[in-house]
């Protein structure tokens, strides 16, 4: 008998007792409630704004800001608009997040592995670290590190100097910054060439391994190329940059790159805090790979480095990724605590100073929240996608 699609539905009950009808009634009611509450709040807000003569709308984004900003990744002067201030805040938040995620991941993996070390002392040290740092509020840690960093550093005049090029003092870490010079173009071209060569080499060596089983020391050769070729370009076509060295003029160092202590403290605190959680995730991820897997790999003659790379980590990653994702999200959200120590992140600059200069609380907070929401959603989407891609195939 060929199956045909269902025709008439079975008889229905009355509106109150039929589950479908009831479900729809309920759903329509809940839509009404949500819309009603939304409208009520909107109405009140409208009324309140009108009553109190508060400006609304997003026109303020074009107004000029008029205040200085401690750190901005793009050019900024006081004449620039609030819109640009928003971008600067967002970039600063992203900077802290990216740095924090990077260091927290590295530190977290190291600690997670240390936590599993057969070496008793290392194991215990890692445990102590994890238990201390994950049980103290991050805000407290941020304050602590900020003032600890400030207290430990000398004034600009007594800076620690490394080869008269790098200076460390309470105002930050000052590094020489490259500035373009005549040989820059050939230099950049040579760099591109080396990188292209690197990729080609890697491809070729993979093919060679597949064909002959021999491995080629790609990394070392490429590193050598990386030094030699641009070096020759520099010699032939002249210096690509001259270095702008930081110099003490007046109160502070001028020139070079400066890494401000606020950034250091917040990155430090967030990395240390989040690493404690990541370490636990890593540990349970590695423990989730059964001992039999390592034994099987060992009995095949694989060395421990290869076992880790080819067998343990790929499997552990599947367990680690989902909790790691939420740690990343937490770190991004916690980066908003930067406001407490004056690091000009999104919350501090935009939901703080701009809000206060313009008085447009609803708009600025709405924008700020949407930005965090968007970051959170995109990180989770990315991670979900990755997670799906690497999921184990089962029956």
């Amino acid at each position, binding site marked *: 008998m060929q199956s045909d699609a269902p025709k008439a539905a079975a008889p229905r009950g009355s509106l109150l007792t039929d589950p479908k009808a009831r479900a729809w009634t309920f759903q*329509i009611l809940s839509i009404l409630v949500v819309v009603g509450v939304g409208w009520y709040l909107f109405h009140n807000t409208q009324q309140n704004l009108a009553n109190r003569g508060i400006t609304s709308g997003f026109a303020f984004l074009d107004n000029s800001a008029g205040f200085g900003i401690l750190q901005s990744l793009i050019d900024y002067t006081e004449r620039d608009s609030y819109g640009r201030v928003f971008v600067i805040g967002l970039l600063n938040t992203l900077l802290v997040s990216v740095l924090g995620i990077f260091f927290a991941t590295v530190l977290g993996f190291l600690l997670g592995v240390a936590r599993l070390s057969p070496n008793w002392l290392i194991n215990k040290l890692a445990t102590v670290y994890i238990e201390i740092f994950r049980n103290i*509020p991050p805000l407290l840690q941020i*304050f602590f590190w900020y003032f600890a960093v400030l207290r430990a550093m000398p004034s600009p005049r007594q800076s620690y100097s490394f080869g008269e090029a790098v200076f460390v003092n309470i105002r930050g870490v000052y590094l020489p910054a490259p500035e373009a010079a005549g040989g820059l173009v050939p230099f950049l071209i040579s760099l591109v060439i080396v990188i292209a060569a690197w990729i080609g080499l890697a491809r070729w060596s993979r093919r060679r391994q597949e064909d002959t089983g021999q491995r080629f020391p790609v990394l070392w050769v490429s590193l050598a190329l990386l030094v030699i070729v641009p070096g020759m370009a520099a010699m032939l076509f002249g210096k690509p940059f001259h270095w702008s060295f930081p110099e003490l003029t007046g109160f502070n160092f001028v020139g070079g790159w400066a890494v401000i202590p606020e950034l250091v403290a917040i990155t430090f605190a967030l990395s240390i805090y989040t690493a404690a959680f990541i370490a636990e995730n890593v540990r349970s991820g590695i423990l989730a790979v059964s001992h039999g897997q390592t034994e099987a790999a060992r009995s095949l003659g694989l060395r421990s480095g290869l076992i880790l790379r080819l067998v343990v980590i790929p499997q552990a990653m599947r367990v680690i990724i989902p909790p790691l994702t939420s740690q990343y999200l937490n770190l991004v959200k*916690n980066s908003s605590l930067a406001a407490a120590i004056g690091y000009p992140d999104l919350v501090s600059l935009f939901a703080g100073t701009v809000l206060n200069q313009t008085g447009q609380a609803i708009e600025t907070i709405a924008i700020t929240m949407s930005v965090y929401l968007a970051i959170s959603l995109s990180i989770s989407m990315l991670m979900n996608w990755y997670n799906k891609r690497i999921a184990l195939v089962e029956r």
Partner: protein
Amino acid sequence: MTTHTFKPSLPPPNMSVGAMGWIRANLFPNWFNSLLTLFALYIVWITIPPILNWAFFSADWIGDNRESCTSGGACWVFIKVRMAQFFYGFYPEELRWRVDLTVLLAIFGAAPLFIKAMPRKLRYGAVFLLAYPVLAYWLLHGGFMGMTLVETSKWGGLMLTLVIAVVGIAGAMPLGILLALGRRSDMPVVRVICVTFIEFWRGVPLITVLFMSSVMLPLFLPEEVNIDKLLRALIAVTLFEAAYVAEVVRGGMQAIPKGQYEAAGAMGLGYWRIMGLVILPQALKLVIPGIVNTFIALFKDTSLVIIIGLFDLFNSIHQATVDPAWLGFATEGYVFAALMFWIFCFGMSRYSMHLERKLDTGHKR
């Protein structure tokens, strides 16, 4: 036919057991680990003695003003002098017994719930859960039935931290459970509403939420409505936390096999009875550790109310460190704050691990 005589067990060669064996196996099994051990020893050596020295050996404990702190180590006098404020905030001195009593009531009231053999535990628990909040409100806030009123603006310190954390989680539980049910509902509209709600709160930082609740909420409400500042913070924390609780509870519900729903349905139980009598009791038991972890996170997050000017434990301490009379003892303040938070969080995380182990074995049998 022979009878095989077994050889006696010999003691192991001495390098593999005993103190030496242990040291060899755990500290110096190979050159790489030996290096690590030395490195770790070095770290211990450069960190522990100075810390101990600062915190104990050359610390000042006695006195009641900054002149007592001369030795160069930690000045615990500062903490000692301010201790009452760190615990009670500006709660009137002569009424502090009310706070103590509230805490004691919580401890002794909840204790029977942890006794295995307690009869009628469920009923007792329900009565306690209903009665205690009223009692606690009467004691802490007062203003009726003969208790003098203590404004919430006078609440502070550890007491406020605990109030926020406990009320937050207690409020978040029922809401979180409803959200979890909604997210697993087969009504698409309800599901969408719940998912949106949950994802929204999980996606934004708590400080923006607190900020909104503290200064913007009145903009959304009619002019005559006036809600206490602490209450608004509590509402914000509750909504925020409910989203996290919802996800934890959902995890637990997913672990309940479909057969349980079917068996309950086949017996003629309706949706709410299936959930209330069969599914949630099992799901909640499974997620107790997760809930405790959420509570720990919440407990740490209470420190953020500094942003909206509530004087919780951390803010009280922070405020004390800028008191001109005690300038320069910020480190002591932060260390003390850290210690207080640590004790609570560590204790709870141990408890959650203990539960996890207990539930784990219970599961296997």
